[in-house]
C-alpha cells in the first residue's frame, strides 16, 4: 500500500533542497540507503504504515517532499530504533522521522494520524504547565479533544484504583525555567 497510488514520479516534483535540508537537520546520511529493507522487516509496526521505512528513505532521497510529509509512517514510528540496529548503513531512521514530523507540522501538511499528534501536544502542554507530565490530566484532555470518553474507561478506573494515576500534578519549583524553554 502506498499513497501515490502507483502514479508515476514527475521530475518537476523532486525537491533536492528539501532532501539536503532533511539530511542536515537529521544529521544522518540516508543517501547511503541500499533499499535492503532490513528496517522494514524488523520494524514492529510496519504493517500499520502506508510507506515502509525504506520507502520513506527513498522519498527523502528523491526529495518527494509532500509524500514524505503526508505519509502516516512518520506518525506510527515510535523511535524504538529496531530499524537502526538492523540497518547495514547505520542510518538513524527514527532521526529522519523526527525531522519529517516537525516539518509536517511547520508546513501545515496533512497530518495522517491527528490523534497521535494530539497526544504529543497534550504531553508537551502538561510539561509546559507543571514541568512534569500529569498523566491523568493528559488522558482526560486528550479524550475530550478526540471526543472519545468511552474507550479505555475500564483501564482508567483500574489504574485509579491501583493509585497509578495521581489526582494532582507533581510540579517543579522553578516553572519559569520551563516556560522559558517553550517561549524560545
Amino acid at each position, binding site marked *: 500500500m502506498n499513497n501515490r497510488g502507483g502514479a508515476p514520479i514527475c521530475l518537476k516534483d523532486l525537491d533536492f533542497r528539501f532532501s539536503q535540508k532533511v539530511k542536515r537537520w537529521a544529521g544522518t546520511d540516508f543517501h547511503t540507503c541500499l533499499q535492503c529493507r532490513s528496517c522494514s522487516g524488523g520494524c514492529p509496526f510496519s504493517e*500499520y504504515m502506508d510507506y515502509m521505512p525504506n520507502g520513506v528513505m527513498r522519498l527523502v532521497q528523491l526529495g518527494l517532499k509532500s509524500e514524505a510529509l503526508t505519509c502516516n509512517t512518520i506518525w506510527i514510528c515510535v523511535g*524504538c*530504533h529496531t530499524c537502526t540496529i538492523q540497518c547495514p548503513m547505520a542510518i538513524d531512521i527514527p*532521526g529522519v522521522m523526527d525531522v519529517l514530523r516537525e516539518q509536517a507540522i511547520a508546513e501545515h501538511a496533512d497530518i495522517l494520524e491527528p490523534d497521535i499528534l494530539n*497526544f504529543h501536544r497534550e504531553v*508537551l502542554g502538561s510539561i509546559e504547565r507543571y514541568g512534569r507530565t500529569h498523566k491523568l490530566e493528559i*488522558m482526560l484532555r486528550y479524550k475530550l479533544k478526540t471526543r472519545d470518553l468511552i474507550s479505555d474507561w475500564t*483501564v482508567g478506573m483500574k489504574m485509579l484504583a491501583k493509585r497509578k494515576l495521581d489526582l494532582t500534578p507533581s510540579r517543579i519549583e522553578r516553572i519559569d525555567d520551563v516556560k522559558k*524553554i517553550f517561549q524560545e
Partner: protein
Amino acid sequence: MPETNSADFSYFPGCSLATTAKESNQSLIECCRKMGINLVELADWNCCGSSSAHSINHQVAFDLACRNLSLAPPGRPLVAACPSCTLRLKHAQQRLRNDEAARSRYRQMWGRPFDPDLSVRHFFGILAGVDMDGLLSTLGRVQINMTYVPYYGCMLNRPFALRALSDHQEVMEKTLAGVGLRPKRWSYGSQCCGTFLTVARPDIVTPKVKAIMQGAAESGADCIVTACAMCHMNLEVRCTLKNPIPIFHFSEILSLAFGTSHHKNWFARHLIDPRPLLKSKGLAAS
C-alpha cells in the same frame, strides 16, 4: 566493590517512576541502598521530554534535557533508571559535546557552562560494575526459586551515535544468576512494547502486547522481569489474556533477592497481581 561504600549518585527518577510506577522507584532506591549506592534525587528535575518532545519539537526536547544536566552537581554521576530518560539525557549530552552553538545556548539558558565530564548512566551500567556474588555473600541471599523471561524492550537498541556507550546486553540475566532465578528462552526480549501508541492507537498495541504476553507464557516462565517502567505499564494495561503471568520490575526482584522487608506497597499496585505467585514460592510473606 567500589559501589558498596555508600557511593553518592545524582538520581533522575523521571515521570513514570515518580508517578505511575512508584513501586519501581521505591524498589530501585531500596536495592541501591542494599548495594551501598546512595541515590540523591536531582533537585527540581523536570520531565526529560519523553517521546513527545523529540517527536514534534527537537529544540524543546534538547532544552528540557539540558536543564536537567545543568542541575547535576559536579563530580557525581547522574543515574536514571528509565531507558527513555537516559537516552534523552545522553542524546543532549552528545549534541553538547559536538556542537559549539548548542553549548553556547546551554550557557545562555542555564547560566553555567556545560560540564563535559558529567557521567550520565543508566542504572544497569552501574550494576555491571557491582560484584554481585560478593555482595550477596555479605548481605545473605534469598533464593528465588522461579523461572522468568527477561524483557528489555527497546532499551538495547541505540541510534548509531550512541552505540559506543554502555551495552546492557544480558545485565538482568547476569545479575539474577546468583539468586536461583532461571531465565527461559523466548523471542520477545527486545520487542518494542508500543510505548505511546497505547493511547492513540490501542488497536496497534493490543495485539503486540498479546503476542509478547503469550510468548512469555509459552516459554514456561513463571513471570516476566522488565527493564523499563513504561513497558511494564503497557504490558499490564493492554494485556487481554485471561490468566497472564505476573510482571515484575527488575528492581523489585533484586530487592527481594537482597531480602528486603520494605515491599509492602509494591506488589499491591500491579494490575496483574503477583502475590499468589510470590506466596507459592514462599516469598514476600507479609
